[in-house]
């Protein structure tokens, strides 16, 4: 039974795989983070002073930080309210069409936040910063600045994007209180209000905190929304400032901002965690008899149903429809007249759109499309292969210390704002390391950073698929004498194929919708679709930006749909 892989395989059988994965994670995750810290301290730590305590620090750090915090807290509160409201309706009441609402409420997260931000602009933009007004101005309303630009629209757009997170977490928690726990309280004669505040809310609190801190972390690291809606009126957040610093070559200051951004997001995620671990594990005892009972809404049923559908449609279908209209209408003031396909397929015409050809005549678009697809596919593949290897290593080989390190490092990118993570990659791989050439400006660097950023999700998928296959099945194969790789290929992978394929597609969707990492690391000669859309938008070519965004959305929707089909309908459990 000696195969070529025999010796390697048997070495890997013991602890080699864990070791290899630990090394990969150090290169992909730990090293860039260490470098960014080191580079702000050596040879000089002046950047820290500049950012934190100098005449510039007001503009460099404090104001962006305050803006970031307001956005984070506002978005967290909004997401908990909106997500919690929908979760309550779906889980605890007799509202009609609950599975449909539950499905719709998970969709907004699949729509890239720059798409929602652009859609906001099509309606609420005013002409103040050029590029023409939006639909409301076209209808004759004077749209005030606070509604067109800056804080309010950023917060609203981000809530519309992130409330899905809070919904998912809170709905899961509510499903555990529903049924017997509430009825046990009803038996005592407690009033509805008392049951809500004495039983339901306390049991759901951990989920509310978890949902809120996830939304907070997402909002403070988001780049697209504040960049598209805030930058035109000079509202800076930490992520836009960080981007600006790197763009104008003040990289050390940018690195300092990156570290601070990581710090803020980590503090809040950590606080959420602490509040959770301080409490007892609220796992409820399931079993037969815990049948969910739905609370009759009575007269409030119709208005609440309407409210739920309005929320779902406003955050999913409407933005997409607005983008479609806005990619066809020559004047942003009247979205529904004089539609033309020029912005999609027209050739250059000096009388039209300052001579810009339609996106399918822009050679950059075609190259961006292929680059995006290839990059998305290869990153998805790489991240998931590493993900499954890590999952195998973690479940099959328990190595003291090393296993723990692998598990922690693979989860770390989840806590890191994408743009700060990208900055760390520039810090480490931007300059030649020994014989290795500098990777800055190459697609390889972008691919590496995206792969690392996707790891937490990929590892989770990997773990789910690996745990689906019980140890027994693997052991049965082992009894036949098959080596490690042989078992992986012949037993583990075929069994896990569906789950893996779905995981691949979701990773792919996340990659092509990412702007925070790509905006710092893309190669100017062949940008990605998301970057192209962003640069069209910042140059004021909104129709083109919308058209490119729609291309991304169509690809995303196809991939998401395929993933949903592959996963089957098991995930919708709110019937």
């Amino acid at each position, binding site marked *: 039974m000696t195969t070529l892989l025999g010796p390697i395989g048997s070495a890997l059988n013991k602890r080699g795989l864990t070791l290899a994965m630990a090394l990969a994670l150090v290169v992909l995750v730990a090293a860039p983070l260490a470098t960014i810290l080191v580079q702000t301290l050596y040879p000089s730590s002046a950047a820290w002073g500049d950012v934190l305590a100098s005449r510039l620090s007001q503009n460099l750090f404090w104001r962006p930080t305050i803006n970031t915090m307001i956005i984070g807290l506002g978005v967290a509160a909004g997401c908990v309210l909106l997500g919690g409201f929908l979760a309550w309706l779906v889980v605890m009441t007799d509202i009609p069409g609950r599975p449909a609402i539950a499905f719709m409420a998970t969709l907004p997260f699949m729509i890239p936040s720059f798409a929602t931000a652009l859609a906001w602009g099509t309606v609420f933009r005013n002409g103040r910063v050029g590029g023409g007004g939006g639909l409301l101005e076209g209808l004759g309303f004077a749209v005030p600045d606070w509604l067109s630009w800056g804080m309010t629209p950023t917060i609203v757009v981000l809530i519309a994007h992130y409330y899905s997170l809070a919904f998912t977490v809170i709905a899961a928690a509510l499903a555990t209180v529903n*049924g*017997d*726990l509430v*009825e*046990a*309280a*009803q*038996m*005592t*004669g*407690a009033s509805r209000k*008392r049951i809500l505040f*004495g*039983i339901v809310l*306390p*049991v759901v*609190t951990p989920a509310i905190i978890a949902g809120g801190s996830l939304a907070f972390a997402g909002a403070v690291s988001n780049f697209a929304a504040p960049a598209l809606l805030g930058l035109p009126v000079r509202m800076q957040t930490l992520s836009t400032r960080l981007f600006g610093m790197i763009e104008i070559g003040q990289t050390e200051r940018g690195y300092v901002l990156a570290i601070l951004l990581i710090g803020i997001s980590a503090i809040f995620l950590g606080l959420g965690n602490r509040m959770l671990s301080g*409490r*007892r*594990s*609220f*796992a*409820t*005892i*399931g*079993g*037969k*008899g*815990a049948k969910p009972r739905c609370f009759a809404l009575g007269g409030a049923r119709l208005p609440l149903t309407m409210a739920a559908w309005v929320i779902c449609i406003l955050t999913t279908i409407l933005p997409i429809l607005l983008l479609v209209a806005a990619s066809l209408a020559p004047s942003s003031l009247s979205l529904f007249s004089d539609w033309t396909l020029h912005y999609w397929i027209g050739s250059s015409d000096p009388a039209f759109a300052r001579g810009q050809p339609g996106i399918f005549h822009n050679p950059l678009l075609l190259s961006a499309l292929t680059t995006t697809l290839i990059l998305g596919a290869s990153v998805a593949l790489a991240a998931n292969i590493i993900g499954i290897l890590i999952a195998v290593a973690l479940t099959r080989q328990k190595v003291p210390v090393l296993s723990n390190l692998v598990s922690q490092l693979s989860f770390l990118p989840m806590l890191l704002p994408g743009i700060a993570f990208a900055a760390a990659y520039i810090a480490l791989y931007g300059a030649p390391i020994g014989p290795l050439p500098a990777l800055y400006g190459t697609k390889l660097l972008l691919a590496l950073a995206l792969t690392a950023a996707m790891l937490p999700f990929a590892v989770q998928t990997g773990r789910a698929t690996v745990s689906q296959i019980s140890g027994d099945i693997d052991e049965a194969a082992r009894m036949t004498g098959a080596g490690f790789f042989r078992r992986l290929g012949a037993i583990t992978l075929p069994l896990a194929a569906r789950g893996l394929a779905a995981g691949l597609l979701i990773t792919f969707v996340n990659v092509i919708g990412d702007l925070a990492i790509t905006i710092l690391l893309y190669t100017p000669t062949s940008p990605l679709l998301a970057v192209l859309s962003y640069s069209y938008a910042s140059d004021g070519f909104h129709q083109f930006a919308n058209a490119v965004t729609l291309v991304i959305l169509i690809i995303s929707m196809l991939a998401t749909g395929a993933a949903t089909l592959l996963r089957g309908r098991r995930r919708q459990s709110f019937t």
Partner: protein
Amino acid sequence: MISLENITKSFGNSNAVSNVSFSVPEGSFLVLLGPSGCGKSTMLRMLAGLDQPTSGKMQFGDTLVADGNTGHSLPPADRNAGLVFQSYALWPHMTVAGNIEWPLKVAKLPTEERRARVLEVMEMLGIEKLANRYPGEISGGQQQRVALARMIAPRPKVMLFDEPLSNLDATLRVEMRFELLKVHAATGATAVYVTHDQVEAMTMATHVAVMNNGRIEQFDAPDRLLAEPASAFVAGFVGTPAANLIPIENGKWFGTMPDPLLRDQSGHAMVRAEQITVADEDGPRTFEAVLAEVVPMAGRFLVTGIAHGIRITAVSDQVARPSGKLRFRLPSAPAAIFDKQGTRIS
């Protein structure tokens, strides 16, 4: 104390409970026994006030608690009833003491008395050491005791249990059975207890209602269920081992062995395991069977064989020969005969 009159509960077009009437005196221990899906939980939830009957009347003592015809229904808290859920339904964010105290708080008892009651019930069930733990930090059996303590602390006149022991392992079950009876005796409340475990029913009940398909097949004292089953369903459901129901056709056992005692009847004859003997040789009323299993029990053996596709169990003093074949001898008279619909005819 509890009396039901033609209670029916329907979900859509199907009846989960149909036309149930019975009454039990104060202090009795009523067990609702039946297979899964027969409507036991639905009955209990109507007694608790969590569901309303579609039609029929329900009284606790002199109080009309629910009337499906007028839609009148007393809310759960005003019925002076407590319910132990199968899942225990302990509130995970409150300590053991907190769980027991909360219903008393809702009932607006003064602090002093609350404390005394919590202590009293915790001592009664031997869980005073767990007072400050959370439900997630105690074992299943302990959770069960906490659920029981929480239910009895407000001193309900009616105690309701929905399969409270089914999540426990066998030894704990026996122990908790005893514990429950103790609590019942100490409080003097009327208990209604749902189970599909007939051993629980036989050991605990003063009254048993055997349910099937939403109807009561028999309402009786436990020993009467064994002695005088009212239907084939009851005969085949109760007893350890349950009695044999042997098909008869025109006065012939298995449709092949004529016997004048069967008087030409068709349906099933009930023959208890202790009435059947293992015979050494062929004779009147004997038949051959293929040995299926031998279970030692209390110094004797339950010998089960398969004849004409039916499992027949007999009690025997010696182990059957391991030849794989054996012979059973039927008694001279069956204990009961049921017609094809399962109704008792003699």
